[in-house]
């Protein structure tokens, strides 16, 4: 249970809710930019709340820079306190897109619109993570190589590709979704993995002309490459 006397730090966009948040949580606790990552005392913080789709910080164009902020807080600041993820999107969509939300006790989801009180209540019902959970969250859901590995080994489409021998065209939609996500991660991966990853992505576009075993072999090689990159 978070320390109820601690501050709640907020990352939000400059919208109509911002002033309400500032009056509810304090001027110095609500940030519009990367100031959130600097000069704070972990001991005095009960937890965080971020707006998943934060337009001002969106230099990558993914539309969900708030989610990058969640990863940065875990990876760079080693934050163990809960982080409430606020979004107008459907929860199922967000969990699928951002597997870090698989841990609802540490990353509770709050569908907007919601009040500052909702943020506080949601945060107080969540829990801090221990060092082992933090390690796993960072390695699997924050580090780009770890995210790529987890996507390749755990996502629905890639798992189907590995375990089933059905006509690949019938699985096209789910595989395409996973490939799209993998493509988004490519630029953050080591050069060697990027090259193999691009090759795999282009192969997957020609599903109709490939037999299942050829794409499976390519996927297995890619998994090995990413796995080795994680070791480094």
């Amino acid at each position, binding site marked *: 249970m978070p320390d109820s006397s601690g501050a709640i730090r907020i990352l939000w966009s400059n919208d109509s809710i911002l002033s309400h948040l500032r009056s509810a949580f304090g001027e110095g606790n609500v940030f519009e930019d990367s100031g959130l990552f600097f000069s704070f005392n972990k001991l005095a913080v009960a937890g965080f709340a971020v707006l998943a789709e934060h337009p001002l910080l969106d230099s990558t164009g993914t539309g969900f820079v708030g989610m990058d902020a969640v990863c940065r807080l875990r990876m760079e600041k080693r934050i163990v306190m809960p982080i409430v993820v606020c979004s107008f999107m459907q929860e199922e969509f967000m*969990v699928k897109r951002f597997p870090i939300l*698989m*841990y*609802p*006790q540490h990353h509770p989801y709050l569908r907007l619109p919601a009040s500052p009180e909702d943020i506080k209540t949601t945060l107080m019902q969540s829990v801090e993570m*221990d060092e*082992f*959970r933090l*390690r*796993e969250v960072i*390695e699997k859901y924050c580090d780009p190589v770890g995210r790529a*590995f987890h996507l390749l*080994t*755990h996502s629905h489409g890639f798992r189907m590709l590995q375990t089933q021998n059905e006509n690949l065209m019938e699985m096209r939609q789910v595989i395409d979704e996973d490939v799209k996500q993998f493509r988004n991660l490519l630029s953050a991966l080591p050069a060697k993995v990027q090259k193999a990853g691009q090759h795999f992505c282009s192969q997957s576009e020609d599903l109709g002309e490939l037999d299942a075993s050829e794409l499976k072999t390519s996927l297995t090689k890619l*998994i*090995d490459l990413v*796995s*080795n990159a*994680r*070791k480094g």
Partner: protein
Amino acid sequence: MTEPEFPQDGIKKRYEILLLEDDQEQRTQIHHNLTANGIIVHSCSSGEDALDTLTANPQIGLLMTDIELLDSKGRRSGFQGYDVANQIPERFPNYLLSVLVMTALPKSAALREANYFRIRIHTMAKEDLLEMPPNDEQNDVVREIRTLIEATSNSWIDAIRKSYAKSRWLRKYSNTSYWQLYQGMWYNKNWESVNIAVGERAKRIVESYRSGDIRKLRGGFLHFKEEPQGEDIKEILVGRRVIYAMKYDEPAYWKTFVRGEQSINEEEPIIPPEIYSSIRCEETKQIINQIQEKAPGVYEIKKEIDKLSSELDAIENNERTNSEPRVNKELHIKQEQRSKLHERLLSIRNIIRPSREQLEQQLQNESEEIQRGFLPYLRFWGTEFENVDWANTKQQSKGGSDPVTQDLLILGIREEDINAENYLEWKLLLPEEMSWMNKITGVLPI
């Protein structure tokens, strides 16, 4: 002070395991396959249920778990496999449990998953478990599972308990029981590297003894704490190995000080009766009688000094957390008392000195056994052994005032005992310890 002890009424481990798997289809299949191979399986789909099942069934010897456990909504909201495993040492302190992680990942990735475990784990491909043939005793998977369960059995733990040494020295400096040590070693995920580090450190200490720098045992190398944890366990293991080294050179010392079978205080300058009665020359006895006559009450002074030293140690330890003026005053008074007694002892030693030197010369005419028996006595009277020819052949270096280090000097540690490249071949280990270490580092895959 906690007595070293192992759980007395050993739980008989049977071939029972706890299977923790969230996927119902896979859980059913693995359950069926293991049962068909004579293994009793308890199944759970959540971490919380797994802990309850382990509590109710202490005969279970192995936890087989998936890493990621999903709830009905496909989230990881409950205890994960590593959450359950990480709680085992504290939740079940009276017995050992093996942990096997089932994984569909490549080997290198599976090993990486071990990072999330605080304790030692073993891994197995889930595919192998899903495709096991029934009634196949020779199947590698069945054999590995049986080995993992047997490793937690109390039958061999009992054997070690019966034959293992009880070091009074260790008990003095740590309230960790041997059982706690074993548990620490069993669950230590980095045991291999700890073992090498401990071996190397023990070797350095032994080398220090040989070069005469023996004070490092207490001063620079070992740092015993009241409740050793993690790194501190290494210190205790180092100390143990140094002590075991002595077993091979001096069984009598081993009996007296390590196993605690005899209770002679090595620091008391008393000549054992069997040594006295074996003295060949009458002149030797006459010199001893002279010394005894010139130093009445000296043993009592020594005892009083020892008593004050223990009290001062206790006060100094207490002072670290409590620096009241009253404590400082008490400390000062006792230090003065000890200092005065020490001066008296030194003056008596000076009076005795000519007779002592006479005795040192006279002992050249006695047997090696007699000479060895006189070492504590001469040490008490302040003999400098490097000036005594016959003593130099038996001891390797000088210095040190505590009984353990003094005796290491006398006994020496043979170079061949610690020269082997493989630390497991050093004679610093008991055969039982060697066997146990092989069990966890050799037989079982890491």
